[in-house]
């Protein structure tokens, strides 16, 4: 078992020094977790440290692809507003 950092990562470095296994490393285009080293902090902390400090919702997933910080859980922004924002940013890119 290991956690995954996905493309939503903003490269803020917050998680990297917290990992008890030094499994997190800087990479392009975003930070990554070495799955061979990640223990999801079992035995070290009550909760995975990267997911505890990560400010970006959905940027850290478990092995099933489920986000540890689902939409709205960190910012408190209501879901329908988040959805509208995502659509606006997609429109801006196309």
């Amino acid at each position, binding site marked *: 078992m290991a956690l995954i950092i996905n493309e939503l990562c903003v490269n803020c470095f917050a998680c990297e020094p917290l990992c008890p296994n030094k499994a997190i490393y800087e990479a392009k285009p975003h930070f990554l977790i070495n799955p061979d080293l990640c223990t999801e902090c079992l035995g070290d902390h009550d909760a995975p440290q990267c997911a*505890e*400090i990560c400010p970006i919702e959905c940027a850290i997933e478990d092995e099933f692809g489920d986000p540890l910080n689902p939409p709205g859980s960190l910012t*408190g922004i209501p879901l329908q507003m988040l959805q509208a924002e995502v659509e606006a940013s997609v429109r801006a890119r196309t």
Partner: protein
Amino acid sequence: MELPVLSPAEPAAKSGCSSSSCGSSNDQMTGLPAHILAKVQDHPCYSEDAHHYFARMHVAVAPACNIQCHYCNRKYDCANESRPGVVSELLTPVQAVKKTIAVAANIPQMSVLGIAGPGDPLANPERTFETFRMLSEQAPDIKLCVSTNGLSLPDCVDELAKHNIDHVTITINCVDPEVGEKIYPWIFWQNRRIKGREAAEILIERQQLGLSMLIERGILVKVNSVMIPGVNDQHLAEVSRVVKSKGAFLHNVMPLISEPEHGTFYGLTGQRGPTQDELNDLQDACSGDMNMMRHCRQCRADAVGLLGEDRGEEFTLDKIENMEIDYAAAMVVRAELRADVIAELESKRAAKAAKQNVVSLVSLSSAPALRPVKMAVATAGGGVINQHFGHAKEFLVYEASAQGVRFLSHRKADQYCAGDTSCGDGESVLGMTIKALEGCEVVLCSKIGFEPWGMLETAGIQPNGEHAMEPIEDAIAAVYAEMQAAGKLLVQPAHQLKSA
């Protein structure tokens, strides 16, 4: 009628800010003890006098943060937006030192290097302190300062003192957890994410502890507060009293910046920022107890130059790579410039003290009912009215009253964001400028076009190009006297009555 100028006119400001009395309460500097004055006299963010002459820069080495604020979006990478917490490129400590030295050699007025983000500098202690350590060795003539949300501050105070950092800014938006839980959705504390009231309680306790620890060590503390109408606006006068009683020497109340396109909680949920009048009123309310800062430009975490300008584009990583720097030679130039400016500032302070002893020329008893009037000024520098209305990127707002003329604030005409294609809202630049001048009855400029003239008049703002090249305070006093002669100062203007 002749009005006294509440702050002395100063010739030829050489800076991005051109007001001659641009800053905080009139006696911001005169009220300070000598040992503090000596520390801040060349710090643009701590001294309103200094900011006309000395520049600052921020290096973006600190991306991580340990709290979330509802006015912040952690997707911090934006080239267009000019607001705190946003940067174009992150630097390593080695790159930051190289950039700082390049700027210091090319802009000898650059007296201060700050680390302000884009996250929290003290949540990145290794990167922040590595930068400070190298700079104090390689460029000992640069003042170092740091800003923080305060959560990690008590753990870092000794390290800060070791690096000879004598200025720290703490952002304190509340001293009451009930207010705090509406501003901070979570903090990361002792290996856990903590939400709600408990998060606010811990953060407030750490901020207050850190403040006291800094004061004990003789480190100067400025407190920044973001004014959020309906959330902490009624509470900030209390914050001002508390932080002053603990020894903070300057309070900077800044307006919330909140637009939906910033993607913040406040932006998306429609939380508005304060109007300029609300901000000024609160600053006035706090100023009875505390030195207030009014010249803050809420700059980016990678800003370079005098307050109100950003020369970061001249010092990108690829550009500094090719610069040959002889820092020993640069230090000589920097020291000479600093000595010259400080001598000039000292002579001005002496002149100001002498002027304040002169009896006011206005007979207050003859004009008891005159109402104050706000006027905006377009100026490109030098303390005179010398800019075309359409070229002004910011306006200086003054208040004229029977007591004299005083500087109130800067107002941006380009509204924080120049990236019109990505985040414009369709409003014309002219319309936004007129909105920015809300509350002003007169706008003084060197020239103005036909179309904006008409639009300003419709909005209840009288354009005035008759005082081109005159000193700002003298021109405002003259216009105020004309308004009095025309009987305009005894009644409220029509557009204000409507909104009242």
